[in-house]
């Protein structure tokens, strides 16, 4: 993926992420990384559901083409909402929204 600075809705923003672990598979070329990386997300609230539309990660805006899975986990009294999604360039990500801190993070990124 290119690392290009691009605004999500106007202002430029750069977030430095930390890779917590990676599952690089040299034999197959498949790779995923587990992250805990702050991210800006543009979300649609529709029919009581949270629908990520696009997000900016490492200065680049990704448009969401498909949400492939969603689930919730508990973090104390608050919930964390998780989304597995594919962007328009067929890159796969997992994002998490922490209701307590109202913050979004990229938790996994897949590169084929």
């Amino acid at each position, binding site marked *: 993926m290119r690392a290009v600075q691009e605004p999500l809705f106007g202002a430029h923003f750069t977030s430095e992420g930390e890779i917590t672990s990676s599952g690089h598979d040299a034999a*197959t070329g498949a790779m995923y990384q587990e992250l805990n990386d702050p991210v800006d997300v543009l979300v649609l609230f529709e029919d009581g559901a949270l629908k990520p539309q696009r997000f900016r990660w490492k200065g680049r805006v990704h448009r969401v083409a498909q949400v492939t899975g969603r689930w919730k986990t508990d973090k104390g009294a608050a919930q964390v909402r998780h989304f597995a999604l594919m962007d328009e360039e067929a890159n796969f990500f997992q994002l998490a929204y922490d209701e307590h801190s109202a913050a979004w993070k990229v938790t996994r990124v897949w590169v084929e």
Partner: protein
Amino acid sequence: MGGMKSWPEAPRRVVMHVDMDAFFAAVEENLLPVLRGKPVIVGGPRGVRGVASTANYAARAYGVHSATSLTKAAQLCPDAHFISSSFGAYADYSRRIVEILHRFSPKVEPASVDEAYLDVTGMERHFESPWALAVALKKAIQVEMDLTCSVGIAPNKLLAKMASSQYKPDGLFALEAEGVEEWLAPQPVRNLWGVGAKTEDALERLGIRKIGDLQALSREALIRRFGKWGHVLHDLARGKDNGSVVPKDERPTEKSISHEHTFGVDSDDPVLWHATLLALSDRVARRSRQSGLAAKTVTLKFRTSDFVTRTHGHSLERPTTSENTIFGMACRLLDECQPDGKFVRLLGVSLSNFTAVDTQGELLADPSESKDSEVTRTVDQIRDRFGSDAIGRLGARYS
């Protein structure tokens, strides 16, 4: 077998066992559709120590199954995609599947994260037959969750579970009460509930390999050889099981609370052992408080690098929910295992022999625990609000 195309007459029960197909791997394939059709092994990245929790059917074709070590799995299936478990996702998918199952019967007993029993007796008002109900159930899970399951229909839980494994994946198999013994007879004894490697070996020594061989033995002969277990074996071999489908909120109180930890690298470091025992004691104590149960017995599980496992327990003077008391006993039990100089692979702490904690509990508790209780209550409140990682004891760690 009639295939349950109609409802049996009362008082016969109709029980279903729903078994999700390669559940963890199937969820991962949903989350990352490019994995579909490729071998997927869930359990951890390639090269780390640990075992596969699930392999999808493409990986099983290479001989990789649940509990295969990840190292061995990489040898058997070099092209596999190795993925760390997303237990939060699996638990939430499981919860949604149970919600679907509740549309088909009020009596749903989740047996684990990926399987459940339903008692569908008396649902003839809503479905033409048990078979029609199972077809509708499978379709609902397929359409709403994009997952497949295998369903067994039978007169009891034992047979329903055996039936669900007949045609996996995406299978459906029904057994009627007539002809059950004949259906069981050619199957290996290990297919019966509770018949593990030890019982299988003991039966093998007697020349018993098939369930039919077991059926040929009298109840008295089995009791002579296996004690009370022989009584159970006699019934199992005939497909008899009176166990009820018990919904989660009707289950009796749990009998034990345990946590264990496998070290990334076998450890001969007593500081790390004790830090781990502290973390494990903290976790089991918190769960006991959440359940309103005080434990009288603390048990240590201790596995060395040569895979020799010891469990060593001791009863306390008074029931407790205090991590300090549990940790103290766990340390004493560890000392009694004489671990010095050994490389430890796994440690576990288990609580059992419970009594309910009532409002008088603190007055009856060990006076030395009372000074800790205010701190414990505050820590519990912080964790209830912000999550279990929000606050912890200094020194408690796993590795």
